């Protein structure tokens, strides 16, 4: 990983932590794989090929003790505000890092940005984010603790969204990451964790995951022999 990018990421996280904002964020996206690779050392999980995006899932309701202007907080690092897509989802850009903010989409898809006035930002509502927010784990990242989704939740969510991707490249990347993480979990003796997450989701999501794994020839990664709820 490029040192400059890594150092900038550290500084951003440190500032968010100092402002007590980081506690309400879950780091999602490909940066998680970097942290999982540390958790699964020696299990063959390599940090993924990724873009500069550093994506934060904002827990809702977004209750904050005090107002923090995130753009102002990071401005002196050289970040500039930009807006993405027709709806105008806010992003903070730097040549080494792009910060994006996401929230779980609820109800009918309107696509409208979700305003978070306490932080002076808006966030993009996305499907399947709830799954990432369930059973998150906290991992150390230098001098701060970062909340990330449990690897099992992360991998199964990747399988769910792969089919919805418009770009084939992204779908291939999602599937690749999902399989690599599921294998690492299995090799660490945590297959039970995969099953537990699988059983906690809706039947239609379970079907999608089974279909995805079958297409990849990796049905064996979903070990459902123990406990109730075996697929028919």
């Amino acid at each position, binding site marked *: 990983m490029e040192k400059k990018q890594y150092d900038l990421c550290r500084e951003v996280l440190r500032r968010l932590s100092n402002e007590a904002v980081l506690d309400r964020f879950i780091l999602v996206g490909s940066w998680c794989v970097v942290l999982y690779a540390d958790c699964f050392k020696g299990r063959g999980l390599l940090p993924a*090929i*990724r873009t*500069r995006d550093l994506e934060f899932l904002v827990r809702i309701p977004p209750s904050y003790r005090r107002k923090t202007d995130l753009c102002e907080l990071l401005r002196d690092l*050289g970040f*500039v505000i930009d807006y993405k897509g027709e709806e105008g989802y806010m992003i903070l*850009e730097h040549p080494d890092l792009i910060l994006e903010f996401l929230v779980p989409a609820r109800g009918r898809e309107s696509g409208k940005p979700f305003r978070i006035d306490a932080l002076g930002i808006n966030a993009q509502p996305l499907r399947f984010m709830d799954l990432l927010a369930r059973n998150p784990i906290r991992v150390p990242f230098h001098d701060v603790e970062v909340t990330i989704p449990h690897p099992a939740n992360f991998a199964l969510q990747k399988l769910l969204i792969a089919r919805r991707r418009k*770009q084939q*490249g992204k779908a291939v*990347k999602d599937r690749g990451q999902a399989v690599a993480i599921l294998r690492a979990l299995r090799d660490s003796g945590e297959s039970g964790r995969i099953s537990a997450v699988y059983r906690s989701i809706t039947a239609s999501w379970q079907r999608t995951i089974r279909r995805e794994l079958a297409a990849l020839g990796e049905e064996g990664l979903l070990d459902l022999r123990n406990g109730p709820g075996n697929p028919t």
Partner: protein
Amino acid sequence: MVVIKNVLREELENSLRMRKRYEEELAKLPKGSLVARRIKGHTYYYLVLREKGAFKSVYQGKSVARKELQRYAEAKEFRAKYRKALSQIKRQIRYLQGALRGKEAI
């Protein structure tokens, strides 16, 4: 291969968008720099800038509001940051365009 190309293409789009944004931010900053000159024991403020390639110094008075001084000081700091960022982005664009310009169709 499709994954790598996809990432490179996405990053190129990001860099092109960023270049535009940094250029806009640079254009928004006040032009020139406020300097204080000591002449015969007195301080005089000048706004120094380049116009159409020529150096220009515009007298501002014996004193300038502290807010204005801060505004120009901040602009100077951000101008340096944004220019550095812009030069980095331009290098990224050249690299990414080169990487994507292979013999295969992209």
